[in-house]
Every structure is written in structure tokens, then in C-alpha cells.
């Protein structure tokens, strides 16, 4: 008897980690808020630590409209163009 595997296929998407930053000092931070309650508080407090310890600066926080859906590609690309690294987190 021959059975058809029911687990399907995956796309040939290739994912790779971004290269690590050489240093944090003076880096520009992007913040991506998933819009759950208190996520903005968590992000700002975290970013403040980087500002105090490494002299980082923070650009305007971006928001997802739906906490459980992926962020739109254009929003990610915009953040990548304006920030050296991104902090994203969820509060609740």
C-alpha cells in the first residue's frame, strides 16, 4: 500500500541572520510596537537603557495594526532604512 504524505511542502525561502553590529555606541534604534497594551511602555523603557548606556538615539516608534499578524514588508523595509537595529516586543 502506498500512502501520500499529508505534510505538504515548504517554499524555498532562504533566511539568514543579519551581520552583528560592530558596536552599539551611537547606534540608531528602531522600535516596532505590536500594539498590545503596555508594549509601548516596555519598548520605551528598554530603549532608554540603550540611550543611557550607549548613547543610542531612537527614531519614531512604528506600530503594527494587528499584534498577531506579520508586520507589512514596507514597514520593515522603512525601519531597516532608518535604524541600525530594531527592538520589538509585546506587552500585555
Amino acid at each position: 500500500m502506498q500512502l501520500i504524505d499529508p505534510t505538504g511542502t515548504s517554499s524555498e525561502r532562504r533566511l539568514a541572520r543579519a551581520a552583528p553590529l560592530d558596536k552599539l555606541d551611537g547606534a540608531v534604534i528602531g522600535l516596532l510596537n505590536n500594539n498590545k497594551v503596555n508594549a509601548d511602555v516596555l519598548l520605551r523603557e528598554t530603549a532608554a537603557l540603550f540611550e543611557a548606556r550607549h548613547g543610542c538615539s531612537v527614531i519614531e516608534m512604528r506600530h503594527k495594526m494587528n499584534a498577531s499578524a506579520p508586520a507589512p514588508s514596507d514597514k520593515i523595509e522603512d525601519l531597516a532604512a532608518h535604524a541600525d537595529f530594531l527592538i520589538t516586543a509585546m506587552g500585555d
Partner: protein
Amino acid sequence: MNTTAHRHEVPDDPLGAIDYCFDQGWTDGLPVVPPEAGRVAAMLAFEGRPPETVIAEHPATGLRLTVESLAANAVMAGCKPEYLPVLVAAFEAMNEPDFNFHGSCASTGGSAPLLIVSGPAVEELGLNSGVNLFGPGNRANATIGRAVRLALLNVFKMIPGISDKSTQGHPGKFSFCIGERADRSPWPRLCEALDYPEGVSSVTVYAGAGFVNLENHGANTPEMLCDSFADGMANYGCISKGETVLVVSPEHAKIIGDAGWSREQTQAYLFERARRTVGQLQAIGKYHQREHERGQKLGADDAEHIHRGLTPDDILIVVGGGDAGGHSAFIPSWSRTRGSLRQSKPIGVCLDC
């Protein structure tokens, strides 16, 4: 046949093949029909596109559902081949971004995709729209809903405890599929309300949370009845800005229909009354100003009252259930906000092709 799926050679022993499926982790906890190649091929005869056609893709992982893998899961669920077009349409609906099937399947909220089939397909496929609507006893309802879950488990890897973090889940996560009962509905069928061409059936998919029984055997006016429905819709545990599915029993539908209320009039009445004050929500910790301000920009009411949903159109009303009994059902939406919005597709036809 151009097939992409891996094949497993197993001994010609049906009971052993059932155990093999368990060993592979392909089940929902219950035994499955082994996805034997001939049965999968028979299922594929009901889909005009090639087996490798992708009908849904997981946005985060890139996992893809092909017609063939859906057919294999449908065989395992116990579906007849003619059920496949309903499943294809259901996954095409779930693949719409606004449905957000990853979120609704992964969340602690523990929702399940509720399928509501409307139109000639209900009779043609033998779907139950009557007595014991949400219960066992009907092959089409039980297996179509089960096939959805098996595909979510096997193809999209929505594995309980790993990628499915439902706090409690609910029984509809085994199977959650109903037919619309047109013969006892005072309103146009859903497929007609969706403006599909005559004779075209539809499936509506909705990320539904646990079932709320709306019992009322004493109401004899639409106002009395809808006030009790609205109370259920606005209960503290369920109220949110999300959508609503209301499955109205034939007895209840007759009271509303005999008074001449249209579906739209009923929706408007329910929306107006399914609400809580800001103070009430604050008292139980469910009022978050920023979330509700965002809702207001989308059309919600003033700060004094928070309605369930944003507009009357958020309330989907459908008739279903047995002839006797004052029991309707409210199915709350998944998500505190509007994480998933219901989607509908025609069955077995492409209207845009």
C-alpha cells in the same frame, strides 16, 4: 499525475496503516483513514487544477498547502471526494490576509475556523443544517471540519503546545462545520446576501471561540428575543470589538421573521443593545483607552458605551438547528481586538478567472 508529495510504502494491512499514521504524528488524536494513493487520486478528481497547486501559504514560515496535501488530509479525515471543493474554498478564504489564520490558530485565545456552508451544496453534499447542528452524527459536517484541522496540524504545523498555544481550546478544534438552514430562514441565504450568482454555493470561514448557548423559551417578540441575544453577545467574558456569528434556531427565527424584521434590521437592533458602558468595562479591567479610541476612529460609538463590534454588519446572522427548542448560539470571535475577520468564497467556481 504531476505529484510532489512524498510517498510511503507500507504493508497491505489497513489496521497496520492506521497505526503507521499514528506513528508518523499525522492524527488529531483519533484514528484516521490512511491516505492511500488511490483514494487521494479519487479526491483530486474533484479539483480541476494540478495537484501541486498552492492554495494557502503560511506567511511566517512559508509552509504551503497544495491541493494534493489537502486531498490527503481530507482522505484521512474520512471525507468523500465530492467534499474537496468545500475545503479548497475554505482554505482560499483562510488565506486572505484579513483572516490571519496564523494568529487565530496560534493564539492563547484558542479559536477554531468555523465553516458555514450556504446554498445548494448543503443538500448536495448532505451537510447537516438541522437537529444537533454542532453535534455528531453527520459525515459531511464531521469530516469536512476535521479535514481543516488535520491540514492545520500536518501542513501548517499548528501543533498544540508548540505553535498552537491555546490556553484551553474548545471542542470545535476537532471539527467545526455547519450548513445554513434555508428552509426555515426568513432571510435570503448567505450565498445570496454575498451576491454570488444563482446556484453558486459559498463557504464562510470565521475564527470562532467557544460556543455560547442562547436559551429563551419564553420570548414571543423579536425585541424580547434579541434583548436576550444581545445580553449574551455583550457578556463580560466575551465583549470585544470583534465580529459575531449568531446561529438562530428555527423557533427563534420564526418569531423574528413573523414580525417582518429583515436581517439588517435585526443586526441593527442587536448592535445597538450589545454594549457595555466604559465604567462597567473599567470595573472589570477590560477597558483600554487606546484600543477603544482606535476603534472609534473606525466607527465605534462614543466613550459612554462600547458596543460589541464596530458596526451592525459585524454581526453575521444565519439560521440553523432543529425544529424544536428555543436554543440559538452565539459564537464569539477570536481576539480582543479585530485580529481576524471572516472571509467567504464561492465553492467549486472561480468568479474572477
